[in-house]
């Protein structure tokens, strides 16, 4: 059971990191055209690059966190899921806010 709880905790944290990466690379790529160009050149399209890297971060960090020796617990799993909930909404608000600004106020 502890292993399962730890797995849930690991993947929840992985999802948090993937979501934070998604918003960070999105805003960074808009503000730094060379980054956007690099993503497009490396992955054929900038959005594909963001998708692939976010997925890699999700899987990679989840596995790494799971592999780190530590005991899992129901409470830790719950806290990780709660963190994912709140951070997801912050990420969504940031993306919407950024593009709202870009579309209507930036220029």
């Amino acid at each position, binding site marked *: 059971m502890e292993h399962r709880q730890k797995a849930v905790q690991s*993947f929840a944290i*992985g999802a948090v990191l993937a979501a934070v990466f998604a*918003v960070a690379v999105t805003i960074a790529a808009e503000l730094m055209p060379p980054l956007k160009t690099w993503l497009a050149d490396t992955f054929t399209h900038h959005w*594909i690059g963001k998708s692939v890297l*976010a997925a890699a971060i999700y899987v990679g960090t989840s596995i790494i966190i799971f592999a780190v020796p530590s005991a899992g617990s129901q409470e830790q799993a*719950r806290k990780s899921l709660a963190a*994912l909930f709140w951070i997801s909404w912050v990420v969504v608000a940031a993306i919407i806010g950024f*593009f709202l600004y870009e579309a209507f106020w930036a220029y």
Partner: protein
Amino acid sequence: MTPALAQLLIGHVVLGLLGITLFVIVTVGLMRDLLRISLIKWSAFFGFVSFVASWITGGYYYATYYGKAVKPVIKAGAYPWAHNFVMEAKEHVFLVLPFLAATVWLVLWLLGGSLETAPGLKRAALLLSWTIVVLGVAITLSGMVISGAVIPK
């Protein structure tokens, strides 16, 4: 639009709707006191698979066709904000969804049997499932706003 691209667009929409439908089943299922774990964990699994498939079909359409053939029409039309704001927001907000879906599926798969006696964990899973449904609906409506703005002259 070629027939293949039309099928990709249809697939993208239908798979997205299917994903949302399955997560509505998960959400409603998690609201109950007595959980039908088998139903909700399989719904979560296929919901996650649907979102990934929607991601791939939509992504291919977007990367190969939207940029050169659809975006210019929207930007030149009556509703340029449908791309400048709605599409840009949609394509990036969507990136959060598959990871949320995978996490909810894993919670149900690995800890589903203990959720009835772990109200805190159950509530956390329910809130995440709600988030998936709300974001899914918002993304779907965004898609309509964007496609509706494609009015060739």
